[in-house]
């Protein structure tokens, strides 16, 4: 364990720009370099060049590490609070819920907003994602959203029928075009249609098939633009219609000019007209709107709220569901961290998780407890070895050090498989114990798939990390201190405990922190020999990433673990120094 000072402050002697600089400072008259420039300026330039050269050498690696390692960690930190799925996919609902008092069933407006949001979300096939996100907070929401996504496109059907009965023009996509599309878009589209026709004509004229294929026209239709007139007069209809046009263009790769609008567009139109909007509309379809405005009060009504509760699912009457949606409507949330602390965010603020679902505090406790147990067993086993190694002659101790370094260099999976083989019920250790008659063949010890297994295997794996720092500290303890203590009348024990041991404490500290840092983040060994009771928080993180897919919670647990490790590492740095990490 060589102590290095490669990164310590400047300790060079001889001609460096620094020393010359100090000389220049001390000189009474201005010193001048050979080319006539003042020495100070010339030296400053040299110093700057040197700094730039050093940075240029470091830069490629620094950028590499920033991109491949630091950015991923930052991404994880960001994901632990990110929560834009609700606010992005249910924007109208989130806004409408602002006025909800949190106790009664939300009013018609909220249900209308939810209907509109969910139609769009289910067309984009996003409603299941919203459902599974909310399901982390309240079980059962996922199936409710899946069920709702199936039925939600019937909202507004009743109005669609009535508008069409009033005037068949309402069924025509072209009517909606004149009503909703911006003139600019219609022009763009005409140009695009001309281009397409030209391309087709050119294709027909082509002589070979290859030529024709080369002339294929694959420019998409220009993106739909809503007319300002419509969004002013009929804001809701315009908003839903432009979503409709966007989905038709991007998801189905069709043209809104040729597709019948969704029922929810008619629902929005009804909402606009029945609220008295659309009065000042003076576009091309003004007559149509005026006629509809007059007819709307006589329309048969169907409340969206009733539709949700009667036709889709009566669970929508549960205010807890609405509370959950509201609680997670912010684009950023502390919800994952609360879950990691066995708390949860509800409409009424922060509450404890129900009894049966409190697992994370227990897991953190277990991780800490087991890491401490591993750390103490490493001290107990490592101290005598380090003591022996540092008191033996160099030749013998170097030979014995190989016995420490060999496990250190052996693949982690090799060591874990060795323990898996040794600790099994039908494994070598149990066989030997039975053969020795210590235990009977029927009462074999359960040494694996529990905490015992994890502690034994991990003590073995981390022991070299305790021995090596201890050994490097003990090697520097002068042996004559103990001899002096003994010659002054101390017993062996007093000499050890009062003189030797205090000098070895820095080594213990370094080894402990190292072993502890390594063990609280361990994944492979607990996964393989820990069963269900001997696993760590890291196993839970892996479970949330690959099995439950609750990435936000995995990121929050990871963030907590990272903070603990960084604090410990800071202590290690204060105690030992970053640069003194050595590799045997």
């Amino acid at each position, binding site marked *: 364990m*060589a102590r290095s000072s*490669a*990164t310590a402050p*400047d300790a060079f002697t*001889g001609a460096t*720009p*620094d020393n010359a600089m100090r000389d220049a400072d001390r000189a009474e008259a201005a010193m001048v370099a050979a080319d006539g420039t003042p020495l100070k300026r010339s030296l400053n330039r040299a*110093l700057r060049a040197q*700094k730039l050269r*050093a*940075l*240029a*050498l*470091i830069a490629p*690696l*620094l950028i*590499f*590490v*920033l991109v491949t*390692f630091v950015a*991923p*960690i*930052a*991404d*994880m930190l960001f*994901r632990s609070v990110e929560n834009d799925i609700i606010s992005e996919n249910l924007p109208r609902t989130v806004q409408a819920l602002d006025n909800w008092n949190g106790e009664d069933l939300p009013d018609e407006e909220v249900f209308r907003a939810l209907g509109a949001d969910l139609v769009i979300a289910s067309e984009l096939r996003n409603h299941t994602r919203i459902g599974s996100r909310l399901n982390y907070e309240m079980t059962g929401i996922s199936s409710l959203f899946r069920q709702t996504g199936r039925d939600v496109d019937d909202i507004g059907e009743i109005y669609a029928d009535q508008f069409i009965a009033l005037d068949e023009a309402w069924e025509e996509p072209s009517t909606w075009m004149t009503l909703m599309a911006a003139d600019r878009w219609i022009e763009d589209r005409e140009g695009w249609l001309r281009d397409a026709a030209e391309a087709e004509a050119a294709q027909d004229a082509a002589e070979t098939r290859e030529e024709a294929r080369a002339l294929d026209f694959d420019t998409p239709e220009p993106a739909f633009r809503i007319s300002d007139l419509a969004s002013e007069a009929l804001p809701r209809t315009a908003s839903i219609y432009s979503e409709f046009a966007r989905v038709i263009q991007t998801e189905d790769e069709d043209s809104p000019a040729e597709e019948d609008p969704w029922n929810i567009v008619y629902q929005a139109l009804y909402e606009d007209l029945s609220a008295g909007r659309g009065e000042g509309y003076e576009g091309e379809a003004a007559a149509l709107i005026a006629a509809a405005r007059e007819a709307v009060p006589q329309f048969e009504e169907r409340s969206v709220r009733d539709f949700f509760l009667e036709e889709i699912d009566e669970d929508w009457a549960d205010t807890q569901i609405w509370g959950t949606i509201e609680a997670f409507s912010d684009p950023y949330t502390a919800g994952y961290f609360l879950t990691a602390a066995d708390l949860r965010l509800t409409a009424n603020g922060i509450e404890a998780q129900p009894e049966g679902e409190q697992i994370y505090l227990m897991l953190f406790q277990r991780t800490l407890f087991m890491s401490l147990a591993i750390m103490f067993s490493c001290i107990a086993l490592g101290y*005598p*070895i380090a003591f*022996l190694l540092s*008191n033996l002659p160099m030749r013998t101790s170097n030979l014995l050090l190989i*016995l420490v370094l*060999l*496990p250190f*260099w*052996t*693949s*982690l*999976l*090799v*060591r874990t*498989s*060795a323990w898996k*083989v040794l600790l099994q019920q039908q494994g*070598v250790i149990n066989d030997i114990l039975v053969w020795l008659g210590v235990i009977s063949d029927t009462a074999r010890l359960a040494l694996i798939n529990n905490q015992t297994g994890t502690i034994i295997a991990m003590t*073995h794996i981390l022991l*070299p990390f305790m021995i090596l720092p201890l050994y490097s500290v003990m090697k520097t303890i002068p042996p004559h201190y103990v001899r002096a203590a003994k010659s002054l009348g101390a017993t*062996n024990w007093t000499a050890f405990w009062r003189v030797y041991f205090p000098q070895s404490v820095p080594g213990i500290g370094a080894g402990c922190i190292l072993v502890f840092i*390594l063990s*609280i*983040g*361990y*994944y492979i060994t607990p996964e393989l020999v820990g069963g269900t009771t001997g696993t760590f928080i890291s196993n839970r*993180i*892996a479970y949330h990433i690959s099995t439950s897919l609750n*990435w936000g919670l995995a990121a929050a647990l*990871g963030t907590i*673990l990272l903070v603990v*490790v960084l604090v410990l590492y800071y202590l290690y740095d204060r105690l030992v120094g*970053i640069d003194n*990490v050595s590799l045997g």
Partner: protein
Amino acid sequence: MQLPPYATTGQRIWFYTFRVICGLIFFFLIAPILTIIPLSFNAENFFTFTPGMLAFEADAYSLRHYRDFFTNPQWQSALRNSVQIAPAATLLSVALGTLAAIGLSQSHVPARRAIMAILISPMIVPLIISAAGMYFFYSRIGLQGTYLGVVLAHAALGIPFVIITVTATLVGFDNSLTRASANLGAGPVRTFFKVQMPLILPGVISGGLFAFITSFDEVVVVLFVGSAGQKTLPWQMFIGLREQISPTILAVASILVAISIALLTTVELLRRRSERMRGLSPG
């Protein structure tokens, strides 16, 4: 540590007890690794010594698990992946790491501590956290499940080892040598390859070996960043241990133990050579 001739009986007892305790701990350290070697020659599909093995009967031992390793397509593709990923990652981290270490050991580097902390961080952050972050981020940028993604991730993990070993070698580097070389008319590139490189080569090689073993042994990150196409040897062992435990794993493990003994010897020889070159006594 020797027993003085005037030691009392109690001291004698303690002296020998202590040696026995230390012997037991050494046994604890080394026995698990050594046990799996004879077990890998088991003729049966068992994980324990059969009566035949204990009686040293020749037909209780066989090479069937080794044969399985060398013929089974799954193990072979895992071996191939490991051999393709580890050298690429090592090359990347050694090339970038050596340059940066040389930069870091110059006398004027602004924000040296901060830079050092960033470069060392892949070694400090628990693997599961690195793996989680890389999984999230690499799937955003389309590197998740690709060969390049795994190589980049492993290179990042190997970099701290290269930085640490190479900067340690550079501590003893005499900077007047590069000045002498420049004085004799050599350009910076020529100086680097003819003067600096031969002297720090032992450090670079042992840093490279550390980087190689990091990548070759690594399983957590590849488990998340890789996909079935990048299944490496440790990954295959991990699956084997978790699901269908087969003694072929022990054969693979024994081969890996042999490799690590070879690597340990190389690193130790390099360290001694480097210290000799710097005029320090080996130890």
